[in-house]
């Protein structure tokens, strides 16, 4: 795995490898000393062209827990037409010796361009690009679902498992959502059945070939008893004429597509509720639903750090160049000793088996 730009880069084995590595990382995060020496001396740049405090903090935490040096580059407003171009920013970071660039950008495809234009040799991690992809969000969602719905005694994180047989409903603004696109691809790769639920105005023209079913009626889908319900953030400005007028009013949206206590009660006992955050309480999700025991929303945040640690580890310590160096080999025992499943997963998470990961 050279970059992580899209969940379509991951085949089933590669996706499970990331999730299993994340499980090992998560295990270390229960300790009092959370920091691992794995990426000591490596530099991770968080290049954020768009505000996203929570994603940036999550990546920053992940990199620091792996002992990487972290540089936060908030480039909001310096889009191409005014100020520095993406190209010059990339050349600058390359000159400064960035080993990985975590990029959030409002333009779909910007991480792809950064990775392939020849401007930098750094590994590129897509932290959300326009309406395209947000692969680490989908990975942390899959990690959370797998842990809750496939884990059991002796294997609480469901290590080694995929999501075959599970039914996941993804509800809300699919049209503008990179989270939805990443999740559809990854959940399908892991064997889950996906149903997209949205008003027709918030589904893309061209959704047909996606490996997902589509419904306009939330109640009908909930009646099927999905194992997980993933609520997407709906931006209030989508209802204004300037924002496109995608639905008549927030109240109507909530009535038809909001997850409230009544709808929550119709779900099977084992079903869980996810939300990528930040939530619009009272719009797509009520306080009752958000704060219920089924909601795993806060846990998603914690899992986000573990998943991002795993991604940075596999990208930076997982290539042949550095696998044999002291920091990387030092990291594997650290992982192993902390892992509940012994040394085997730690070594499978290591470099040699990741070579074929990119599609």
């Amino acid at each position: 795995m050279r970059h992580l730009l899209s969940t379509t880069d991951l085949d089933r084995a590669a996706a499970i490898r990331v999730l299993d590595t994340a499980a090992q990382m998560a295990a270390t995060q229960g300790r009092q000393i959370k920091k691992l020496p794995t990426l000591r001396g490596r530099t991770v740049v968080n290049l954020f062209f768009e505000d996203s405090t929570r994603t940036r903090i999550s990546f920053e935490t992940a990199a620091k827990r792996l002992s990487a040096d972290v540089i936060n580059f908030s480039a909001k407003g310096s889009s191409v037409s005014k100020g520095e171009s993406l190209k010059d920013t990339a050349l600058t970071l390359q000159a400064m010796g960035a080993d990985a660039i975590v990029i959030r950008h409002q333009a779909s495809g910007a991480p792809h361009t950064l990775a392939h234009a020849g401007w930098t040799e750094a590994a590129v991690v897509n932290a959300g690009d326009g309406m395209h992809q947000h692969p680490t969000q989908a990975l942390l969602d899959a990690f959370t679902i797998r842990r809750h719905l496939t884990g059991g005694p002796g294997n609480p994180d469901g290590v080694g498992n995929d999501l075959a047989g599970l039914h996941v409903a993804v509800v809300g603004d699919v049209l503008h959502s990179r989270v939805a696109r990443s999740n559809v691809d990854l959940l399908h790769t892991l064997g889950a059945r996906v149903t997209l639920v949205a008003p027709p105005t918030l589904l893309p023209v061209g959704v047909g070939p996606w490996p997902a079913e589509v419904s306009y009626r939330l109640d009908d889908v909930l009646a099927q008893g999905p194992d997980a319900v993933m609520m997407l953030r709906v931006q209030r400005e989508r209802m204004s004429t300037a924002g496109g007028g995608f639905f008549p009013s927030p109240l109507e949206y909530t009535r038809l597509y909001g997850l409230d206590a009544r709808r929550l009660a119709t779900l099977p006992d084992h079903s869980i509720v996810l939300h990528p955050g930040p939530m619009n309480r009272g719009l797509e999700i009520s306080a009752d639903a958000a704060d219920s025991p089924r909601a795993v929303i806060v846990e998603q945040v914690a899992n986000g750090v573990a998943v991002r640690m795993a991604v940075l580890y596999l990208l930076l310590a997982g290539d042949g160049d550095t696998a044999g160096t002291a920091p990387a080999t030092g990291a594997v025992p650290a992982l192993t000793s902390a892992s509940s499943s012994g040394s085997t997963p730690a070594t499978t998470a290591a470099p040699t088996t990741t070579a074929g990961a990119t599609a």
Partner: protein
Amino acid sequence: MTAQYLLKDVRILDGEPTDVLVAGGLVAAIGPEAGDAAENAPDDLDVIDATGMVLLPGLVDLHTHLREPGREDAETIASGTRAAAAGGFTAVHAMANTTPTQDTAGVVEQVWRLGAQAGWTDVHPVGAVSVGLAGEHLAELGAMADSAARVRVFSDDGKCVHDPVLMRRALEYVKAFDGVIAQHAQEPRLTEGAQMHEGVVSAEIGLAGWPAVAEEAIIARDVLLAEHVGSRLHVCHLSTAGSVEIVRWAKSRGIDVTAEVTPHHLVLTDEEARGYDPVFKVNPPLRTQADVDAVREGLADGTIDIVATDHAPHTREDKDCEWAAAAFGMTGLETALSVVQQTMVDTGRMTWADVARVLSTNPARIGRVEGHGRPIAVGEPANLVLVDPEQRRVVEPERQATASANSPLRGRELPGRVVATFLRGRATVLDGVPQDDPADPRFAAGRVTP
């Protein structure tokens, strides 16, 4: 100064090999008489072995962005027309979206004069329909028509004349001087922020969609307006199967509408966007394979009257960036004929006579351009292009004559090569090379790189 040229064993369109003598700015003789006449010719006779080559009337582009005045960093009138000559053109229509806009007699005369000075092709400025392309007030169409530039084609290209009343008035007004409104059909509200064709690919890669209906709705409205007021309408760069159907229907009703397709819409699809390379970002966007098939069929059956390049040069900085930040447009003057050969002639859909019709005769007629798009016959002005259909070449944008490198065909092998272009008997291109005149002070000044 002007040499005489004897083209030996050349095929005129699809005809049998013959000889053609170009002299005195005219097609002086055809057949055995050409050789006889050449024997009595002065020393400056240039004999070209044209075995296997095809002679077409000089190409006429109804849709070229020369960028001057305003964006001379992307193209100048001299560099753009030199590229046009290299592509086999003898006349181009310079679109109005310059800075300042070509919306007054003064600006169109400036463009016309710079074109004449450059001497590579005839330059016919297109006049803006509305002042500053703002879509609010009619520009002084009559003044532009009566100017030295004799403007006959009016367009806000780059923007749609979306106000139906303004469009109606423009269609009516230009009847006074036999003008035509060339519409960039793009419903603006349906395409706010649009980046690429709306469909399966846009849904997957997350770029805002430019729906086919935004083009088709305007074309449908405009053909009905043209019918209502009895005016002439030209549809720029038609790109969808639905648009072909609407134009076909309009023509069947006798509406005076003509339509163009670009070379890139004949050969490329929205699948190209998957790599987010902005060289494939264009307006209207690349569509689906079904649309490509439909525009090819429409061109072959005459529903689409012409191929026009929409040559849109852009600087590197306007394309060397993320997709959403990049400019719309791609170059095309030097590859248009090859694309038409590849997609239409080599596939058996069209003859060379058809190529002459869609790249010369029809655009000259629509633009009311005199002396171009004429039959190749004795006594006609020698506006000609000599093509070798057997040669193949790989597109290298940096080696093209245009000042910009945003060709979407980089690295592709295309059939056909322009061997020579003649503008009123003067060779602007020989052996595939633009014939720069070292004595011309413009080259000495470095304005044009030979």
